């Protein structure tokens, strides 16, 4: 479980996060949603330590990540997998080298064991046999799937996904969403997905946090989100004509 307490973050005079507290349970897909500029990605980066919050704390299974030194954070980070918005694959390496990279760095496994793990991860994301492809040869959806394979290579306890569907066609986006949910349930990871994609919200949003102007505005599930009377959330959820029709 990950718990955040009163996270505040400012960039110069601009306050992006205004004291956010939340709990993210393991084994379910936690979604952080909100409009552009609402602070979703900043919150995610504060949680994984890419940004230092001005105040507040992040707890990974009751371990205070915010107050840890570099070495202690390194230990926690080996338990974290992250899928980036642009996949962030190392473009100087092929698919196999990308997935094997954390294994090379942090394990003493033999090459065969590492290759077996790579093949397992690739099979898990339906990309078996694509080991030698270069990053530049992959489509957007394949990059996301390799990103997931790299994120799960070290058997993470915590999985973070920053807009996993951005730039993907609806069909591929659903495949990625389902993959994230399957991995979450299978390995009981604490999964946090930052998104503004309504298909993801309705499809995999077991626990949803809605951010508005840097504050936690609403929390609930995908079953509750369509029936809430929260004005700002309704404006976000039913922004498209299609959703408006659905609402009527």
């Amino acid at each position, binding site marked *: 479980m990950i718990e955040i307490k009163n996270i505040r973050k400012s960039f110069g005079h601009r306050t992006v996060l205004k004291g956010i507290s939340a709990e993210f349970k393991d084994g379910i897909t936690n979604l952080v949603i909100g409009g552009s500029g609402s602070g979703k990605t900043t919150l995610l980066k504060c949680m994984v*330590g890419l940004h230092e919050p001005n105040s507040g704390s992040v707890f990974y299974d009751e371990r205070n990540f915010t107050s840890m030194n*570099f070495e202690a954070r*390194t230990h926690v*980070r080996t338990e*974290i997998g*992250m899928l980036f918005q642009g996949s*962030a694959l190392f473009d100087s390496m092929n698919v196999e080298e990308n997935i094997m990279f*954390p294994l090379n*760095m942090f394990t003493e496994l033999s090459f065969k064991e590492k290759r077996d793990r790579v093949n397992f991860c690739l099979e898990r994301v339906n990309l078996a046999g694509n080991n030698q492809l270069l990053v530049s040869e992959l489509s957007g959806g394949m990059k996301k799937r390799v990103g997931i394979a790299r994120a799960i290579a070290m058997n993470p306890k915590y999985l973070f996904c920053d807009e996993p569907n951005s730039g993907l066609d609806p069909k591929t986006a659903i495949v990625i969403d389902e993959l994230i949910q399957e991995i979450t349930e299978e390995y009981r990871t604490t999964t946090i997905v930052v998104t503004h994609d309504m298909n993801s919200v309705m499809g995999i949003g077991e626990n949803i946090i809605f951010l508005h102007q840097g504050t936690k505005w609403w929390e609930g599930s995908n079953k509750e989100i369509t029936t809430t009377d929260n004005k700002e959330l309704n404006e976000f959820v039913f922004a498209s004509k299609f959703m408006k029709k659905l609402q009527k």
Partner: protein
Amino acid sequence: MIFYPLGKYILLLKAVFRKPEKWSLYRKEIFHEMNYMGVGSLGIICIISIFLGAVTTVQTAFQLVSDLVPKSVIGGIVRDSSILELSPTISAIVLAGKIGSSVASQIGTMRVTEQIDALEIMGINSPGYLILPKIIGAITMIPLLVIISIALSIVGGYLAGTASGAVTPQSFIEGLTSDFIPFTFTVSMVKSVIFAFIITSVAAYQGFYTHGGALEVGQSSTKAVVISCIMILFADYIVAQLLL
């Protein structure tokens, strides 16, 4: 105004020299960088060095109008100016353009495409993994390139001098081999190590703190070359003042 980037630069270097997670992976990267920086820069260093020596010979001969000064002086001037100044400094400035821009744009691109964030999320000390191999690669290979440059500069001077008739082969070699002070070579090597450190660390700093997109990567690359060149000339003066 200068203290903020200077402080960031020092903190980055502190992170660069943190204990590596796994030496075997760093070693692989170091050899890769040594090959890229050393072997990859050999061609351009050879070409500029031959011309540096040739131009020094021709221009020195042009200025030697007095019959009281023997022509053998040309050999000595080419030797000393190649060892002390031309080979280390001009090579460093050329390498700042070649290696510095490459390092800044490589690391800058990794920054804007979140590859550095990905390294950090994995628990890897990204400054160490990305920058340390480049610094070690440069401070081992650039002095070797400077040695090659010195040799080729003298060869270039000899060829230009004898081909143009500015100096006879015997006079050139006589000047080349007389009154040699070995300490000048030590100064040259000290300079090349310092220049190598400046080229890679300044470029890495510019790349590492790139924000934005392709435009900013280009700007970082340009800034890396400009600042490196200024720092090289500044360090050149300091070393000359301290050691000579």
